[in-house]
Each structure stands twice: as C-alpha cells, then as structure tokens.
C-alpha cells in the first residue's frame, strides 16, 4: 500500500516537508471531499475554500455572518487568493505572505465570474464544506518555519515571532474572559426575566424577587417581601384570593407566551442558526466542517438574548447547551484577531475546542468537567497543546464568573449544593437502580424526541415554527402553573431537590415530623408529615409532565439546551426514590442493611438529596451517553469528592442500559437525523469488504481522468462543463492509467480562467500540460502549464485493501478521498461520502455485525 501524505502546498521536488514534521496530526480528522458521486456535491470543495475569505469579509464588515451571493463575490476573491497562492507559489516565504502576493496572480473580476458559475450547486450537503486538515496544518507549519527562520534577522521579526508563539494563549485568554462575561450577563438577565412572570420590584425594576427582598426588615418567612409586588398586588388584588390566583395565573401565562414568542420571532428574523442546542452541529463543525454563519456574531447575539427569553418563558429547556454554542461563537470571533488561527480552519478548531471547555466551565461552574467534556464529547482533534489551552481557558472563564458572582452564592450555578454526608455501601444498589432507570428514560427520551423531530421535519408542522413555539409555550404555561414544582424555574427545582432539608427549607418536601425543640435529637431523620406525601404526588405529576413536554420542547426553533430538563427529570426521580429509601430506613432501622448507620437515628443515614443528584446524573448520562465528563461535572457541582463512586455506578449502569437499547446518544442521533457527514471515531467497522467494493466508478464504467500531456484546453473545459466531480486524477495516458497526481476541480477551473485572461495566444486546441518539462521548441499554440496546481502526492490504496484500513485512514488522517490502484494502475476513487454511505449500507444489511465488535 503506497500511503503518503498529501502535499498540497507546493511542488514536491523543490521542498518536500519531511514526514516527521507533520506528525502531531495523530488524531483522526474528518473531511468531506465529495467526488464523482451524485450531482449536488459538486461545488463542495469550491465552497469550502471560500470560507476563509468569507469569514474575513464578514469580520471586516459591520454585519454578521458570511453571506451568500454578494459576500461570496467579494470574499471568494481573498480566499481564492489563498488557494492560488498555496498551489502556485514556490517558496516558503511566498506562501506565508499569501495575502500580498497573490493579488497579483488572480485579479478579482475574473475569479468572480468563475465562482459565480459554481454557485447553483444545491444539494443536501451544499451548506457544509470540508476543511483539508492536512493542507491547513502543513500551511501552519510552513508559516511557523518561516517565522522561526527569520527570527534572528531583525527586532521586528523577533517581535513577530514572539507574538506568533504566544498568540494561542492570548487568544484563549481573551476567549475565556469574554465567555465568563457573557455567561454572567446571561445569568443575571435570565434570573431577572424569570421573576418578571411573577411580579416586579417597583423601586428598582432591575432586581428579581430575591434581590428585591435583599435587605428586607420583615422577619416573617415567606416568598414575598413588602418591596416585591406580585402582579395581583399591583392591581389591588390579594394573593390569596381566587381573583388574585387567576390574575397571577393569567400574568404567568401571558409573560411566558410573550417571552416565547419574542424569542421565536427574534430567532426567525435575525439568526435562524441560533435555534436549538447546537451541540450536534458543533461536533460536526469540530470534525472538520464549516457551516456558514453558525458561529457568527448575530448567532451569538440572538442566542444570548434568545436563551434568556426562552428560559424566562418557563419552557422545559436550559441554557447550558447554548452556553457552549455561545462560547464557541466567541472563540470563533476572537480567533479572527489572530491571523494564525483566524485564517486557518484547522488551527481555528483548536481554539474552538478550548472555547467549548470554557462554555461548560461557566455553565456548570465545572472547569475540569468542561475540559473533559470538550475531550470526550465535542472535540475530534484534541492534541495535548489544546488540552492545556482548554484547561487555561476554562479556568479563566470560571474565574471571571466567580468574580462577577451572578447568583450571589459565590458559584456560577444556581443549584450549587454543598454535601458532606457519608453513604452506606448498600446504597449502591438503589444508586445502580437509579442508573438503570436513567438509562431507560434516556433511551425512551431519545427515541421519542428523534421520532418527533423526524415527524416535524417531514410534516406540515415544520412550516409553522413560530406557531409551534407559541403553542408549546402556552400549553407549558397553562399546565405548569398549578403545580408549584413545575411553576418554579427548572434550576430552582433542581436546587430544591438537591438540597437537604434544614431549617431554611420550608417546602412541603421537608415537612417531616421533626422535634425542633429538642437540641439533642436529630433533625435529619424522622417520619414524614402529610406535606411530604403531597409533595411526592406533585413530584410524580411534575416528572410525567417534564418527560412529555421536554420531548416536544427540544427541537422547537428557539435556543434550547437539554441538560437542565434532563437533570431535572433525574432529580425528581431520584428524590422520590430517595424519600422512599429514607422512609424504609426509618421504619426498619434495625434491619441488617441499615443497622450500622441508621439504628441510632443519626443524621448520617439516608440523604434524599444525594439520590436526586445521582438520579440527575443517571438521566443525563442516559441521554447524552457521557461518562467521565458527566461524573466530574456532577462532583464539581456539589463539591463532594466522596460521591464519585455512587455517581460512577449510576452513570455506568445508565450507559450500559442505554447502549443496550439504542446505540446513539442524543447528539449522535441528531447527527444521523440531520444527515450530517460525521465520521464517528468511536464506532468500529466490523465488515470484511474491500476497497474495490466501495470505490467509484462501479462496474466497467470508465473513470473520468485527465492525461498529463495530451488534453487540450477545450477538452478540459468540456470536462469541467460536463462532469460535476470535485477533482480529477491525472494519469500518464489513458492506455496505461499510471497515476501522476490529482487536481481539484476548483483549482483547475480557476487556473484555466486565469490563464485565459492573462496568457496571450491561448486557443482551444492549446495543450494542458501537467508534465515538469516542456520540449523547448514548442510548435503550435502555446501550452498551458498546470503542474503547479497538481497534487503530486495523493493517497492511494490498492483495490484489495480492507475497508477497515481505509476507514481508519479517513479518520486518522482527515482525508477527502483516496485513489484506488490495481497493479499500479489507477482503478477508481473512494470519497468520504462513499465511505459514509457504505458504512450505513453495511450496518443496515447486517445489523448484528456492527454490534458484536
């Protein structure tokens, strides 16, 4: 198997980069170069190369996001220049100074025409572009080498080199600061807006209820103080009267619906990409795709505002997933300040990985959990360098939030609880049971949600996104209000369920028959009062309601994360079981299970709050199938290292049960649902097919090729016109089919257009030459020399290479395509698309084979 790195950057003979220098690229990386496949994939590679330029264009303008037509015209120029520069120039120096150099090569007008022709290639994946990890990383290496080489020359160069060296750290530092600031902003805005449903603080409207009653002189303990006016009070009705209840109900629903409507309308009007959680898309983007505008400024703004509104509307959704998206938007925006990252998509993904860590860090106040989340769940290419930067970025972000202190509890989450109670060994059984239940709920949730999303996608429902939001908000508001546990915001409910019953907790949930007068007796452990049973019924109803409504909520077109709802479901379930266990222990204090800890009626017996925590982790684990990151996040949330084992047991059980009933987590399920071309490196390929079975073209159809020295310009143009392949292999001659190299459609058309404009005397019968030397006395019309755009090191495999190997190559090298040879002659081509299609096909034909591995 001849298997070499692609050298896109330059002519191989003049300065080949030694293999070892590219070694850091170990982790798999995906690209999606489509090829002679069906129509609609064409303009793929073309589009993706525009991306860099588009982003540049968008950053310089005051309006967001890369855009289609007009922006593409202008922006394609700059990125075309990058491309042409990379492929045409010879020396390292020229390559690094691409922005100056290449303007002379390609003049904008001509390129504009070419790209304009390519625009109408709209297929299923049209909006997705692939990045060429190999090329981008090689480009960065060139740039780095150039800078280090010239470091000694002048002070300016030395400064430049220093700036280049530290720009990664400065970039993640600024991302961390920005993420922390934005997260605090959202936290404060959300709490304020949430309480607006209940009433207002007339003296200082910017306070929520808690803040409004901050220095109340009243000693009576209730939710309200004299400074805070509920809506009924504002209209002169008493809170306790029937009229007051109806008025409060009405205002609750009214505010909820208007917040929901505003969020939906803003999203629809300004940034549709801000809807949903965004994590499946982020996973796809980090695996090497570009979704235009997904990480733009408007998405950032609308997602930040929209998530406040959506949470305030009382919908069953959370701001934690969107926080990751927001953080990555910030990472994307800040990376433009550092050309090393902003202009290099592969390098940019390092910053984005760090930003994802910062996002989770601020969302849960869990910096280490954030780093692990980035590693385990979202990142595809995660070298050690990125690990350290993620660590730093998460640290900074958490620090900023802690400084701003949005919740007044010195933590970055509302539901932070401090736990320090021991657990009994036998409690592992209920914990594992919680894990199993969590796995079941998770699987059912994924199934139901994907089913509903598919239904929405296919039916007429999908045509009324704003109405759908209105309907869900209305139903949610009407059903949620009567039950106090669904009426309060999900984060508050989670806090309530996590926390222990103490003096401060007057909820029904803590209505135990406790003897508070006797100091020597325990407070924690006693028989339930009627309030607890009332609370249990309410909680069961709340659980059913949350389970049902969340299925329909996740996927509506407002910003929506599913961490909080799943934590909430799990916490309710856990608390119910926890209270059950507690009462079991109370009534059988001398049974052998509880004998040690509970017989004395001690405080250290069973803590229902701990069950709520374990249950929350179990359901979240069942839905997302995260393990390590989740446990670390949970223990950072509670500051209790001693609960790692219960959490691990529950999360593991949940994952096993979940994996047994459905192999994908919610993110992967949504990736499949949306058909994102994401080559998962977790899956194994257990089939025995060969490269020859997968390659295109199939059965006796000829492969479209170019010959190195016999094709005419007219022939090339015909080829470009008649085929929609994204690249063409170049062979010695059609008879021998010996492979010379590979040329991208985009480069070819650009080069031809450029030549037609600049080269005089070029005629239709001019030869297009890919050979290094041209016979010196040339007869006939002047030839077009295109060796410069030829990739002389395409990766090839033989037709008997097992597909497992080929898939590994795609994953680990981030390839777009491989060429298939037989006896050294070119036989066909395999693209990423072909690989994905083949994997899907094999899995559906033989579903057992994939699972056995």
């Amino acid at each position, binding site marked *: 198997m001849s298997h070499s790195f692609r050298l896109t950057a330059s002519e191989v003979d003049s300065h080949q980069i030694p293999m070892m220098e590219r070694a850091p690229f170990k982790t798999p990386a995906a690209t999606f170069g489509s090829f002679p496949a069906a129509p609609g994939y064409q303009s793929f590679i073309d589009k993706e190369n525009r991306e860099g330029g588009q982003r540049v264009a968008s950053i310089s303008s005051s309006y967001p996001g890369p855009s289609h037509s007009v922006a593409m015209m202008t922006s394609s120029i700059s990125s075309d220049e990058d491309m042409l520069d990379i492929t045409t120039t010879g020396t390292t120096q020229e390559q690094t100074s691409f922005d100056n150099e290449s303007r002379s090569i390609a003049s904008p007008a001509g390129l504009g025409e070419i790209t304009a022709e390519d625009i109408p290639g709209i297929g299923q994946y049209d909006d997705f572009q692939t990045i060429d990890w190999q090329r981008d990383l090689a480009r960065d290496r060139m740039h780095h080498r150039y800078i280090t080489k010239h470091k000694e020359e002048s002070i300016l160069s030395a400064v430049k080199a220093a700036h280049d060296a530290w720009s990664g750290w400065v970039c993640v530092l600024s991302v961390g600061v920005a993420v922390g600031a934005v997260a605090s902003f959202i936290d404060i805005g959300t709490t304020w807006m949430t309480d607006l449903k209940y009433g207002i603080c007339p003296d200082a409207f910017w306070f929520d209820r808690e803040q409004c009653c901050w220095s109340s002189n009243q000693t009576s303990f209730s939710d309200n103080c004299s400074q805070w006016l509920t809506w009924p009070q504002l209209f002169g009705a008493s809170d306790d009267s029937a009229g007051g209840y109806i008025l409060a109900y009405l205002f609750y629903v009214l505010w909820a619906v208007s917040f929901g409507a505003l969020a939906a309308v803003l999203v629809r*009007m300004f940034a549709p990409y801000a809807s949903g959680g965004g994590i499946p898309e982020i996973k796809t983007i980090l695996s090497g795709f570009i979704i235009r505008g997904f990480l733009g400024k408007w998405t950032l703004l609308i997602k930040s505002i929209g998530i406040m509104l959506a949470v305030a509307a009382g919908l069953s959704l959370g701001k934690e997933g969107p926080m990751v998206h927001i953080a990555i938007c910030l990472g994307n925006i800040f990376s433009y300040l550092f050309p090393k990252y902003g202009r290099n998509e592969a390098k940019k993904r390092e910053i984005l990985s760090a930003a994802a860590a910062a996002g989770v860090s601020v969302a849960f106040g869990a910096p280490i959990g954030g780093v692990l989340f980035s590693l385990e769940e979202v990142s595809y290419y995660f070298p050690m360098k990125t690990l350290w930067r993620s660590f730093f970025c998460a640290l900074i972000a958490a620090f900023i939030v802690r400084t701003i202190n949005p919740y007044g509890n010195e933590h970055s989450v509302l539901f932070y609880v401090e736990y320090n109670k021991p657990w009994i060994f036998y409690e592992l059984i209920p914990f594992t049971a919680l894990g199993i239940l969590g796995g079941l709920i998770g699987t059912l949730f994924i199934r139901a949600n994907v089913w509903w999303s598919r239904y929405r996608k296919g039916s007429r429902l999908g045509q009324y996104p704003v109405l759908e939001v209105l309907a869900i908000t209305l139903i949610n508001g009407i059903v949620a209000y009567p039950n106090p546990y669904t009426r309060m915001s999900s984060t508050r409910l989670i806090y309530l369920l996590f926390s222990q019953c103490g003096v*401060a907790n007057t909820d029904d949930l803590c209505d135990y028959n406790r003897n508070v007068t006797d100091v020597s007796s325990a407070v924690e452990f006693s028989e339930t009062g009627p309030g607890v049973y009332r609370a249990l019924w309410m909680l069961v109803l709340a659980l059913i309601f949350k389970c049902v409504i969340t299925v329909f909520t996740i996927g509506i077109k407002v910003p929506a994360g599913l961490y909080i709802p799943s934590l909430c479901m799990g916490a309710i379930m856990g608390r119910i079981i926890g209270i059950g266990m507690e009462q079991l222990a109370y009534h059988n204090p001398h049974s052998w299970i509880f004998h040690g800890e509970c017989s004395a009626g001690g405080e250290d017996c069973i803590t229902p709050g701990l069950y709520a925590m374990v249950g929350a982790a179990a359901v979240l684990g069942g839905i997302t199938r995260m393990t390590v990151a989740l446990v670390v996040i949970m223990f950072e949330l509670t500051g209790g290292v001693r609960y790692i084992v219960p959490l691990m047991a529950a999360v593991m059980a949940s994952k096993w049960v979940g994996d047994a009933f459905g192999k994908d987590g919610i993110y992967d399920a949504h990736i499949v649902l949306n058909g994102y071309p994401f080559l998962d490196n977790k899956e194994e390929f257990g089939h025995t097919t060969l490269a020859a079975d997968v390659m295109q073209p199939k059965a006796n159809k000829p492969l479209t090729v170019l010959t190195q020295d016999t094709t005419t310009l007219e022939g090339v143009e015909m080829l470009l016109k008649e085929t929609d392949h994204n690249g063409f292999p170049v062979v010695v001659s059609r008879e021998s089919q010996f492979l010379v190299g590979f040329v991208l459609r985009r480069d070819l058309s650009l080069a031809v257009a450029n030549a037609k404009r600049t080269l005089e005397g070029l005629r239709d019968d001019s030869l297009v030459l890919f050979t290094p030397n041209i016979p010196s006395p040339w007869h006939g019309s002047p030839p077009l020399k295109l060796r410069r755009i030829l990739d002389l090191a395409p990766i090839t495999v033989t037709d008997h290479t097992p597909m497992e190997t080929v898939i590994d190559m795609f994953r680990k090298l981030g390839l777009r395509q491989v060429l298939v040879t037989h006896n050294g002659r070119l036989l066909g081509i395999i693209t990423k698309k072909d690989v994905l299609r083949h994997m899907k096909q094999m899995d559906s034909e033989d579903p057992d084979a994939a699972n056995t591995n």
Partner: protein
Amino acid sequence: MTTPVPVLLSFFFLFFFSFGIRDVNAQYEDVRCKCICPDTAVVNGTQSHRKLYIENVPPNKCDCTNVVLPRVGDDIKGKEKEFCPRCECKYESRNTTTIKVVVIIVIWIISLLVIYMLFLVCLDPLLNKKTTTQYQEHNNEEDESETHSQPLRASGAGVLNRVGQTTDKWKKTVQEQRRHIYDRHTILN
C-alpha cells in the same frame, strides 16, 4: 436601502429613559447576612414557623449571636444555647451596579432588536420599493451582486450606501439560513 436612523433614535430614547430612573434607590446594600431561625416560641416547646433575620454585618460576624440574638434577646432569654443551633446563617454578597447595568443593557438590546425587526418588517419593504423604482436600470432584483453593486460603490455614494449594501448582504445570509432551517429542514431539526 436601510438606514440606521430609527435605530439610533430609539437608542437615544432608551438612553435617556434609563437615566431618568437612575438613582432611585440607595437602600439596597451589596452584602447581607441572612439568618433563618425557627420562631422564638420554639424554646417554649411549640412547633412553629420560620423567621428571617437580615443584617448588614461583616462576614465573620454573620452568626446567630451577632445577628439574631440582639433582635430576639428578650424572648429566649437564657435559652440561647438551645435556640442558636437551630439557626442557619448565610453571608451573601452581590453587586447591585452590575445587576442594574446588565438588566438595562438587556432591555436596550431587546428593544433595539424589536424596533429594528419592526422596521425591517414594516418600513423596509416600502423604502426598498421606492429605491427599486428609482434605480430601475441598476436594480435588477434577481442578480444583485457585483455587477450592479460595483458601480454604485465606485461612484462613492457614501457611507449610507455601503451600510445599505452590507445590510442587504446580511439579509441574504439570514434568508439562506431560514431556507435551510424552516423550508428545507436540512439542519438543526
């Protein structure tokens, strides 16, 4: 061409609006010590409600002895040792200025977005229609791009024009996103 004039106007309006209500309340402190205790009747053996005591004291003095006892002293004379362990005291801090600034900014942003949205929905089509009729020869709805925007830009029609062009560009991006999400359902389902 869209203009930012209404946006600016509304911005100033909101600016003054928010300054009008600026120094309303100084009674809101930034720190507090919040103690929650059972009713003082507890020491006499009756079950009861909780009571809330809030003081502004330094963190090291945030406990029952310093916050609660001075206020209930007479009721539980001699039984402090029984009463105090039942109290939970928590020291909390916040930054009222940050909260105020953030909430006002949030209101601003939302108002600006709503105003701009209304502008785009209601006024913009009217304005654009006028522009279209005026520059009929240039403006060919279908292939708006380099071909006609280039000469406009070259003629130096000014900042306003460029802003307009950027806006148009942005609008097309959003339209494209809308098509992906709401019409074709290819992404974010």
